[in-house]
């Protein structure tokens, strides 16, 4: 009797497949006898597992309430419902239980929780989801302040670092501002009121940061800074801090100031504050520097002093932009001076005992298709 039970695939908690397959190979002969003691596997019957639905169509459920206990997913979890480790289906939102079919999985039965009483499931595919907010407002002001100030452990541990960062930023800013202030008062001798000076400093600090940190072009950095100020004025007006006349006045004043400044100061490609150069002036300075570089510092091996001088020439404030500087540096201060430059190759040297300040290099000669050993002065290499 027990053999048939096992073979028919009915649920049996302790029976294993191996046992079944082993038993299948036994040839059974039924005789007209009755075993008195039964068989070992006869008594392994467990109590019922109390499976089945626990709530029914249209019933209200609370979050976490079990809707169905089952073996395998006889019923699939639908909207606002989840499935547990043993395929127990439970609600995650309060609402009304509905059993339904889903057109995307036509052979499955689903159970879901509808958040409103008369809302059918499934929700149409392209309709917005119905969602519950669920968080309650804290009415008590002191409790609210306490809750608002509550930090997660991660945030709390991060505070000292944040303070440090903001301190460093402040310090950097004040340093820069004083430098800018010095530049404006000494080099340009601009007569500005305290308020205007402050505006100017703030403006060029922002432009400097945008250009230096983000690699923005000077023009768009200036536009962005103007926009920032105009935006803040607009917000002040919307808040009621400024009347519309005051707003217009401040706006006009700022535009005047910007016009006045833009003809005197500008920011360099590296973010440094410099004197404004007109387009013609800039072009003539460029030509001048390039010509000097071309005539005096090209096609020869440069000494260290020369290299420093060339570097300074390329970094002349306010003349070249970043790409141009890179190109010039590549051309006049290469990492390794090409072999074709006169004086950069010393032939016929003793590779074992090279003279002082000469570096031995093995090079490939395209013409003879062979390698040969040459010496190269130290100055040929930028890193030496």
């Amino acid at each position, binding site marked *: 009797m027990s053999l048939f039970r096992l073979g028919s695939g009915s649920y049996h908690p302790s029976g294993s497949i191996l046992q079944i397959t082993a038993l299948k190979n036994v040839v059974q002969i039924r005789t007209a006898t009755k075993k008195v003691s039964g068989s070992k596997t006869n008594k392994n019957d467990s109590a019922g597992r109390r499976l089945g639905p626990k709530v029914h169509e249209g019933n209200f459920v609370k979050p976490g309430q079990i809707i169905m206990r089952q073996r395998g997913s006889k019923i699939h979890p639908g909207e606002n419902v989840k499935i547990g480790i043993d395929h127990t289906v439970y609600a995650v939102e309060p609402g009304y239980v509905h059993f339904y079919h889903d057109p995307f999985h036509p052979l499955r039965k689903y159970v879901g929780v509808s958040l409103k009483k008369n809302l059918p499931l499934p929700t149409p595919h392209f309709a917005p989801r119905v969602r*519950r907010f669920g968080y*309650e407002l*804290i009415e008590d002001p002191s409790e609210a302040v306490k809750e608002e100030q509550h930090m997660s452990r991660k945030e709390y541990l991060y505070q000292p670092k944040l303070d440090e960062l903001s301190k460093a930023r402040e310090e950097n800013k004040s340093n820069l501002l004083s430098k800018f202030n010095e530049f404006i008062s000494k080099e340009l001798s601009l007569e500005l009121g305290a308020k205007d000076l402050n505006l100017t400093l703030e403006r060029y600090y922002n432009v400097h940061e945008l250009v230096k940190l983000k690699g923005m072009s000077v023009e768009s950095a200036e*536009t962005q800074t103007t926009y920032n100020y105009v935006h803040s004025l607009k917000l002040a007006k919307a808040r009621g801090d400024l009347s519309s006349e005051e707003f217009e006045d401040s706006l006009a004043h700022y535009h005047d100031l910007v016009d006045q400044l833009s003809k005197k100061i500008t920011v360099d490609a590296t973010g440094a504050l410099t004197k404004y150069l007109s387009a013609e002036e800039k072009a003539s300075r460029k030509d001048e520097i390039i010509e000097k570089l071309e005539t005096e510092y090209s096609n020869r091996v440069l000494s260290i002093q020369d290299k420093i001088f060339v570097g300074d020439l390329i970094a002349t404030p306010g003349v070249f932009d970043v790409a141009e500087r890179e190109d010039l540096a590549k051309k006049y201060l290469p990492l390794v001076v090409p072999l074709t430059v006169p004086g950069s190759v010393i032939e016929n040297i003793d590779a074992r005992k090279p003279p002082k300040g000469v570096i031995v290099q093995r*090079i490939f000669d395209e013409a003879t298709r062979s390698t040969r050993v040459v010496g190269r002065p130290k100055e040929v290499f930028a890193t030496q």
Partner: protein
Amino acid sequence: MLSRISLRRFSVLGAAKAAQKAEVDWIASKNQWSYFNDESYVKRSESLKLNKPEIRESLLSNSSESGPASIENYSQRLAYHSPVAIDETFKMAYEMLETDAGLIYKNIDRFRAKLKTATDEKEIEFLKKTIDKLLVSAEISNPEVLYNATFNPASTLDMSQPVYRQLAKEKWESYDLMITMQRLEQLHVIPDTLPTLEPKVDVKVKFPHNLEEEFSSWVTPGEILPAYAVAQPPTIQIQEFDTVESKQLYSVLIVNPDTPDLATNSFSTTLQYGLANVPLDNVDNVIDTKKLLENGDKFTFKDYVPLVPEKNAQNQRACLWVFKQNGELSIGDVARENFDIRAFVETHGLNAVGAHVWRQHFDRSVETVREQYGLGKGRVFRRVRGTKPIIE
């Protein structure tokens, strides 16, 4: 690399082509791909040229002894050796493709002539589309164009050229589009705001006022941003891949579908930013600070207010939608609260072509931003979610 045998077959082909050659000789003599801005029938833009002359030289003429110009390191350049016979084979291939391109250009010319005399609107549309397609196929295998598209940053490509747009579109579809659609679906932007999206344009968003590097570059869809990083209106790039002849008008909406609604214990949608009648085209494709400063008032119908999530109100989504307009819109007064985006789109006959999303939750900068915008102090909710049902 193609082997020697293939090389031989190439030359066999060359011989076979000789008969046809007389026919196309006049085209070949024009040297299509190195012919720019001329008054003849082939009017090619300068931007189809490789923009670095030394690399152009080393690509189109034989490899020089000093090595390829694209390798900047001197010793690496000397150490580099090209594959055997690549120059000869390339020359043959180039001639073949160039002749083919010449024939296509001849075809384009024919279609352009037809376009001049065409009157039927459908026919004109068809002709324009055909010409665009042909322009792409005439340039898509041009090595200079390939070089520009492969090695130069996408922002430097001239988007007025159909071939660059096609290449940009392929690149967009292979990554950015998939990321965007994945995030829109995962974060339920569709269908919580609009039912679906058939993406046509590449929408990119950034907040240029930020001084921090991590918040000033283009926002990846779905990113969580702090309130101070979004305190000013975003710069929005709308890259169209089809030809836009005169300026096309666009509308942009930013909505927050996660505003807590305590009356129903559910959520309502808030309109955070509204732009309409923004004229853009293939090249001028960005709504940036400069444009906002100059004529922002003209096309802003709802000023920007950033999302300021209150304490414990969980993540909120800023859903940005871009629409193509059929004509100029006149939008009256729209309420910010309880905004129904589906009804808005319906009434104004808008056609959604792109979307973007970023997320925000409560952080320490929310208070400052609230002050700036005069929004008053934020509410505070309990940290643990309650079990009260929706109020019907």
